[in-house]
């Protein structure tokens, strides 16, 4: 921080901070229930999703509301501070997954977000996290550095029609399930966007939420599934941060 506004408290010049670079409206129904990430008026730096674009983060100095700045503790450096943004995606995915402890997990994609999803699942007590990718180097990285317990190299195979593609996805699901005899798994984090991985993800999942109250099959991107406040503060995850900033 190079300067602090006169009415800002809790920060001082020289503090190391991480910025949350999406600024929501703060008053719509989504914001009111704490789901400001899907606020329609959200202005997000470095994103081309909404127009006109909000100025991005490729600036040496940036004027940003203190509300969306997070002070980094002494033992967290700026590099890791910069990783809090993609880590947020992984944590959000974990929270929405209702993953129980001792779950078995498959993560498709060993890019940064896939690695972070695997890491969060592991940190949150998953019994077995298997990461799958087409790149052996990424898989080796994941296992060697503690992001996942095991890995599966997905063969590059493409069918000529939907039936063949679904058959390939079933094969992939079966092969992943054979890693350490894990079988069908509790939670799948699909981090590729590739149709064959989404398909394989469905085939490798079992009664995903049998331990929870939800018995609905929901296909949704933005639909409210549960009040996020209750979601964070109630059971299944009593480990939420006491400093959570939810609006509700």
């Amino acid at each position, binding site marked *: 921080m190079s300067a602090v506004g006169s009415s800002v408290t809790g920060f001082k010049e020289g503090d190391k901070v991480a910025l949350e670079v999406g600024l929501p409206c703060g008053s719509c129904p989504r914001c009111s229930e704490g789901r400001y990430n899907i606020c329609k008026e959200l202005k997000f730096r470095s994103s081309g999703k909404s127009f006109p674009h909000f100025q991005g983060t490729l600036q040496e100095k940036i004027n940003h509301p203190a509300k969306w700045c997070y002070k980094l503790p002494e033992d967290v450096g700026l590099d890791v501070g910069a990783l809090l943004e993609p*880590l947020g995606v992984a944590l959000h995915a974990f929270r929405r997954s209702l993953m129980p402890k001792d779950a078995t997990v498959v993560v498709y994609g060993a890019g940064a977000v896939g690695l972070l999803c695997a890491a969060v699942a592991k940190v949150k007590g998953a019994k077995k996290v298997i990461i799958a990718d087409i790149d052996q180097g990424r898989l080796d990285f994941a296992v060697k550095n503690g992001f996942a317990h095991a890995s599966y190299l997905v063969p590059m195979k493409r069918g000529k029609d939907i039936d063949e593609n679904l058959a390939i996805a079933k094969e992939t699901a079966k092969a992943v399930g054979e890693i350490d005899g894990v079988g069908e798994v509790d939670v799948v984090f699909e981090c590729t966007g590739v149709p064959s991985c*989404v398909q394989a993800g469905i085939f490798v999942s079992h009664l995903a939420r049998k331990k929870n109250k939800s018995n609905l099959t929901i296909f949704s991107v933005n639909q409210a599934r549960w009040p996020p406040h209750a979601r964070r503060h109630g059971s299944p995850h009593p480990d939420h941060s006491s400093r959570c900033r939810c609006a509700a």
Partner: protein
Amino acid sequence: MLVGMGHPIQTIPLGAAALREVDIVGVFRYSNTYPESIEIVQASKKSPDGPDFSKLVTHRFKGLEEAVKAFEMAGKTKDVDGKLVLKVVIDTLGEGGESKL
């Protein structure tokens, strides 16, 4: 959990999902995650088998004038030496202000 954003329109075995009560859940960015994310990276540092988050930064460039090179690198999966490319950092701090991992 649909985290990846590749193809917005896909053919998926919805029946297979429905018959086994597999929930397909969308994920868009995050909300209220930073404080807990900080706790996660701190806890991982102290745990012997915890993921080493700092390893994700594989390449770094100094100053905004290097931004084009940094983006080119970020678009690759491996650099010219065959080393994995994951996260690329552009460090805009002045001399002596390097971040400490």
